């Protein structure tokens, strides 16, 4: 009996690894794009919220 390589028996298990990286990559790029497109003034306003109360 072999105890090794048993994950290979699960159909296309490598999809999970690839999927996780693609998910993260896409998400991160979209987030960065948004963060750097947003007007700095909006952020400044938001960052003052704790000081206003």
């Amino acid at each position, binding site marked *: *009996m*072999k*105890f*090794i390589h*048993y*994950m290979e*028996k*699960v*159909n296309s*298990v*490598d999809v*999970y*690894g690839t*999927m*996780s*990286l693609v*998910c*993260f990559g896409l*998400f*991160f790029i979209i*987030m*960065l794009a*948004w*963060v*750097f*497109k*947003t007007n*700095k003034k*909006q*952020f*400044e*306003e*938001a*960052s*003052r*919220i*704790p*000081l206003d*109360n």
Partner: protein
Amino acid sequence: MQVEKFYYDNKIVKAFGYATILFGIVGMLVGLWVAIQIYYPESSLNLAATTFGRLRPLHTNAIIFAFVGNASFAGIYYSLQRLCKTRMWSDRLSWIHFWGWQFIIVAAAITLPLGLTNGAEYAELIWPIDIAIALVWVIFGINMFATIIKRRERHLYVAIWFYIATWVTVAMLHIVRSIEIPYSATGSYSWFAGVQDALVQWWYGHNAVAFFLTTPVLGLMYYFLPKAANRPVYSYRLSIIHFWALIFIYIWAGPHHLLYTSLPDWAQSLGVVFSIMLIAPSWGGMLNGLFTLRGAWDKVREDPVLKFMVVAITCYGMATFEGPMLSLKNVNAISHFTDWTIAHVHIGGLGWNGFLAFAILYYMIPKMWGTTLYSKKLASNHFWLGTIGIIIYAVPMYWAGFEQSLMWKSFTPEGQLKFQFLETVTNIKPLYVLRSIGGALYLTGALIMAYNIYKTIKQGKFIANEAAEAAPLIKEVSPKKEYWHRVLERKPVRMLIYSLILVAIGGLVQIIPTFLVKSNIPTIASVKPYTPLELQGRDIYVREGCYTCHSQMIRPFRDEVARYAPNPGDGGYSKAGEFVYDHPFQWGSKRTGPDLAREGGRQTDSWQYTHMYDPRTMSPGSIMPRYPWLLDRKLDTSSTPAKIRAMKKLGVPYPDGFDKVANRDLMKQAQRIVANLKKDKIESPPNTEIIALIAYLQRLGRDIKSEPQQQLAENK
């Protein structure tokens, strides 16, 4: 526009604040007690309720859920109202949350010393308490979201995002980890077994650190640091990147707790990759915190709140750099199962969580009592005692971890293991003594804080309802096209859903394939279900918290195989198929004692009997506690049928109707052990707990040892 007048509820903050101080001190005291037990085992008082295995879960649960939990709730109730410019939605729900949470803590403080446990680290609490936690958590969530919805501030400040992510992720983690089958009013078996249980456990355990000890505390940092420094956070943009990247990456990193175990390689690699990536958002957050103080470092000298914050954030940076380093396989090979891990978590616990909790208490209490801190000098003494305490705690533990690991791995020129396991323990005893001195200093600091806060309260007058005013929120029609995130920031429910999707993806991708593997894990032909007596013995093993000091996982290293499975017929390192009937798995995370995966047959029954009565008679110098009560206590066999039925439901292949005859089988096996003991002149009735525990210990690894030699050779 008409300005509305309203009042912040300070009473609930006060209640959570008091609970933080009380349970913090209790949790630290228990921690100190178990730290002393490690080098002075007699201090367990030879009582079942106060042995290391039962008190260590009490210490971890008290610190995580009672100390840090209550501190987070105090800070959240204080900051959320002010960030939303509104009172909490429902005072009644606030108080149900408070009393419900304290009830859970008291229930834990009673059940854990009684040995009522699930046997999963940081998820030890029994199933009725698990249900109570879920209910109280939902009540907290309803109150929080309703408050956010009725807010008078359009924008959701970044701290609130951290609170939302905390709520949603902890709910998910708690539910999945708590799926179990009860067999009695207090006992249950994990739904998962072996490798799956290990993966679920560390997906939970790791993310409990992430979403109970990190995200809410980061939220507090983003509120209280700007308040204390009186300047906005260094970069709000960075705080947004910090948030999304952190919650997305953290959820994937759990498998780094299982490197070199029987967990599939791809899952281990996934854990490593995401752990390394975690450095970026964590350090982004740390730098954002420290840079907020640019130009205000002079204040740090004066203000105790900022002093504690600076050390807390620095410790956060240290721990989040060290964590990814520990997840590298070559570092983990040295650090895992040693005190290095203990040092690492205490940099986080004492430094990051503890100091941030102290900082917010020093900030909120004078404010809520309309006064100033009674003594800055005492606070400064607290700060230095705490800081020095952390160093004296952590440095010896790093040293101990490194030294013990190197000793484990040392071979003589002839190729023999150089040190007995016991030598590697007695060698680091002085370091354990030092560690408890560090802990005692830290605790002394906390006591000074309690006094200082008591005096502060005495000199002030409590403002139960703090007046505030703000304009109501009117529906804004934005003429300009807005970015989607700007919209999202105003929609708490959507924020919740997106956060949930994000963390759920990480969880599912890790867990689904491991469930698929269930049918693919090669069931080793010789691995059979536990006999009823062994099952009862295993439950005693879990009850006594043996997993807090002993692992059951031989990693594929030369030294581990040489130490724990030295002979060709010993089965070598641990294989996934060995654990298919282990509900819950008992791989452990620390080796204060040796690994027990192949314990079966290594010692005689009478050796095990005498060793449990007094370990030092068999292993002079051993630091294991005594378990004299096991020799007298009657085994509760009335639970056997229900346990067998529960196991059968979980897929353990006992024959139909076995539950009815299980006790007969149990007695037969017990009589055999009694006969063995008698040969060595030990008289014991067959129905005592020690007999069941011996049966279990003698079973460990026996199945794989009986696997035909040729098949084992193929495994290598």
